[in-house]
């Protein structure tokens, strides 16, 4: 599978993502500097985590308006697989590739810890490898992960099976207490209506090998490898 990672100044989990993609797919992903407009022909485009433009104004807002994002949008509109993690998720929502918005965490603090996720949709190109083991621990590290959307939008996400991941406890119970940031309906990640764009706050790229204490983060990319095979 060929992939590309878009780089903006201020992103800082780009190296994590590049390394993870290489380890999982066996191919070096393209690292695309935002100013170098053209996007190569790839199966997957990833917008990684960090603090693009310092997260000044709003998280992801400035990167979302860049020409590079217009290219990503073209790729996604044409059905290309697109993944946004953390700041990448924020950028994709700001750019309108995914619905809703990410606001300051409920407790207003940056939070880095290992939480539990439940894959709610286990049929999408991104999540089908979670069918057997939908509940897994996963790290989060963010300040603005409090997902919000209007009631109609939420209903659409629910009805269309667009909720990819929810926060849960170790036993898979989706509860308020297991929700680290106050996001609506305990949402940790969503798909677009067509299912070719995934945005998520947790960091699967930091969960791919023994040194990370688990490898469940691989499943997303492994699902994709299978999907494009």
């Amino acid at each position, binding site marked *: 599978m060929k992939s590309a990672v878009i780089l903006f100044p201020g992103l800082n989990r780009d190296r994590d993502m590049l390394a993870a993609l290489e380890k999982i797919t066996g191919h070096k992903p393209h690292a695309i500097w935002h100013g170098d407009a053209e996007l190569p022909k790839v199966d997957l485009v990833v917008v990684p985590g960090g603090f693009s433009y310092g997260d000044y*104004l*709003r998280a992801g*807002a*400035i990167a979302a*308006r860049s020409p590079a994002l217009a290219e990503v949008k073209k790729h996604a509109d044409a059905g290309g697989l697109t993944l946004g993690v953390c700041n990448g998720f924020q950028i994709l*929502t*700001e750019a309108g590739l995914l*619905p*809703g*918005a990410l*606001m*300051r*965490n*409920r*407790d*207003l603090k940056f939070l880095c810890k290992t939480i539990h996720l439940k894959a709610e949709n286990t049929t999408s190109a991104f999540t089908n490898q979670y069918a057997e083991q939908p509940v897994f621990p996963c790290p989060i590290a963010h300040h603005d992960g*409090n997902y*919000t959307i*209007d009631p109609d939008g939420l209903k659409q996400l629910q009805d269309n099976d667009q909720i990819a991941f929810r926060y849960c406890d170790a036993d898979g119970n989706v509860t308020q207490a297991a929700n680290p940031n*106050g996001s*609506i309906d305990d949402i940790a990640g969503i798909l677009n209506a067509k299912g070719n764009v995934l945005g998520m706050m947790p960091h699967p790229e930091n969960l791919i090998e023994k040194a990370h204490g688990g490898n469940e983060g691989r499943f997303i990319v492994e699902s994709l490898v299978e999907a494009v095979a």
Partner: protein
Amino acid sequence: MNARVFVTLKNGVLDPQGKAIEGALDSLGFDNVDAVRQGKIFDLKLQATSADEAEKEIAKMCEKLLANTVIENYSIELRD
């Protein structure tokens, strides 16, 4: 020309910062506060030949960048 842009959350959008401040004010003994909503202002210095032009230009900036119109409203105040 100087202008001030106000960006506030739409009604009904949850405001975690406002809520936290409300709680904090309450525990500081300001129990006469019923509600707090937090917003942003941008003070702009810009070149424009007329107020009208400035206002139009700033509205474009708001639509394109300064406000996330999914959750936020904006308003513009020209100052001089």
